[in-house]
């Protein structure tokens, strides 16, 4: 994924310089595009947020720490303005998205399974600390309705569709006890250095979708600043995965800037 981002950054930078060089020759083309109600934009930003169950299930007693990872997004999009006044438009984009976070939470009777390399497993109810790391890379297509409030402001909203290219959902449990295999099973204590790792990365769903809502402010002629909230609407886990007894959704705020041609 890192490789991806780098390549695309380089390409984009090349693009920018190319554009400034070739501005005079392409100028006419852009004017033509604009006159036909089409805008093009490239955007870069960071995702900050979390992947969380909604509402928080009763199993989660407290959130003890949260740290967002550096999650960069890159997007290219095209907007077609529909009406004559160019107030309403529809945009389609393609975005390289990463969503990254790490949390520590205290839980009570949290259902979990720990798999070994043989495929065997230990399952039960955990009461104690849980550290979770979620790191996902997506290829996302947002399809948004655009409304221009003023010459400088526009707001966008609509669905997005994501394909997860890479995903990690892992962590460990610490300082607490496991009741295995169920509520009437035997108790196993964990303290200090004793912890058990889990990894549900293979159970993540590849197709995810949700809603996106945001606004963009034109700072200079070509430079926009944006903030977009993306809200996942299907569970990040596969349908037949039952270990995590509640659905989890990615909810991230994307902040960044864009270059409009």
């Amino acid at each position, binding site marked *: 994924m890192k490789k991806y981002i780098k390549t695309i950054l380089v390409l984009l930078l090349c693009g920018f310089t190319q554009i400034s060089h070739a501005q005079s020759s392409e100028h006419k083309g852009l004017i033509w595009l604009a006159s036909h109600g089409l805008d093009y934009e490239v955007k870069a930003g960071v995702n900050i947020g979390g992947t969380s169950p909604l*509402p928080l299930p009763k*199993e989660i007693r407290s959130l003890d720490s949260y740290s967002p990872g550096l999650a960069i997004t890159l997007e290219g999009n095209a907007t077609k303005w529909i009406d004559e006044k160019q107030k309403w438009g529809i945009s389609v984009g393609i975005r390289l998205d990463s969503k990254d976070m790490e949390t520590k939470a205290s839980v009570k009777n949290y259902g979990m399974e720990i798999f070994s390399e043989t495929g065997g497993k*230990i399952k039960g109810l955990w009461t104690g600390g849980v550290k979770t790391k979620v790191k996902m890379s997506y290829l996302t297509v947002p399809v948004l309705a655009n409304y221009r409030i003023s010459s400088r402001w526009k707001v966008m909203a609509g669905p997005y569709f994501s394909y997860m290219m890479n995903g990690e959902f892992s962590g460990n449990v610490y300082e607490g006890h496991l009741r295995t295999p169920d509520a*009437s099973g035997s*108790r196993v204590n964990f303290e200090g250095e*004793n912890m058990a790792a889990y990894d549900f990365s293979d159970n993540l769903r590849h197709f995810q979708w949700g809603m996106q809502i945001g606004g963009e402010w034109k700072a200079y002629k070509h430079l926009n600043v944006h903030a977009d909230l993306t809200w996942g609407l299907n569970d990040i886990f596969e349908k037949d995965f039952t270990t995590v007894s509640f659905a989890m959704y990615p909810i991230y705020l994307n902040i960044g800037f864009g270059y409009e041609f």
Partner: protein
Amino acid sequence: MKLKYILAGVLLSLSINSCIQDEALNVEAAIDSCTGTNIQSTTIDHLRKEIEIYVLDGTNISQQELIFTLPEGASIQAEKAEANDQPPLYDFSQNTLRSFIVTSEDGATQTKYLIRVNKLALPTSYSFEELKEVTPYNVFYLTNASGIMQWASGNPGYNLSGMALNETQYPTVQHPTGYSGKCVKLTTLSTGNFGKPIGMPIAAGNLFIGSFDTQNAVLAPLKATHFGFPFTKRPSKITGWFKYKAGDVFTDKSGNTVTGKKDKGDIYAVLYEAPNSDFSLDGNLFPNNGTEIDEHIVLLARISEQEMIETNEWTKFNLDFIPQNGKTINAEDLKNGKYKLAVVFSSSVMGAYFQGAVGSELWIDEVEIICEN
């Protein structure tokens, strides 16, 4: 930009924290431990929900104290109360087998346990023919057929590693071809991704008289093995048959290879002083990495390194109980059950300290404790 981050972070954590729901009542319903006056040994079978309690012959069990450790908020009740019950004192004189029901704090989980109070003398010959349980792992009867005393092993601990896919993949299993009839086969196995990070890369196959405390299996594994059962005779020898094969690669506590070191099996029996009925020696009975001997030990019969040979043939062992710590047996105390006997077999002599070779196998059959008259 930085301010924006901080604002977003604060807003997010505020909004999430404000969503924390009211705490739900606990759903756990189990008996985690059971102690009480005069109790010599307790075996909790978490699979079948059966608890065997052992007291000395002559103990008055019409007012047997039972102190249970239960999950937070759970409660316990005898299914049918006896007239003489005054919890925590229960009358087992009419029925030695009684049912108790544990109810979770939220009332949704109820677990029924069978609790039996036994006055049983420890048998002195062991053939490993009968299993109390076959799955998920083998549990051996210590008493044959009719008896209710069972051998303890580290199998419940190995279960936590999730490595075994069936009962034959545990460190302690029954094997159909022994010296005579069936036998016990102990194998040192890897604990995989679960055990290595916590300093328990291997699990030696073991079998012992006593009980295994799953609660401490991960936290304090040496304390999880409670060795011994009251013994009122004077043991002189332990005899039996064994086969041994050392695994190829000896590893230390961190799972690193120790070159040039060969694994050894272990066979021993100890008679020790138990100042109180609930006293038992644990896995640390040879402290300081096996170089010392616990001060309570009176007699020890242990196979020597020279005798623990690698062999494919059933080989006889015949070990004398030798006095330790300058102690002698007090005949009166012996009669009153102040001594406990532990018999221990392990496929890796340093297995309690998680050192050994994966693949080491110790086979044991037809063991007998020979006592003086």
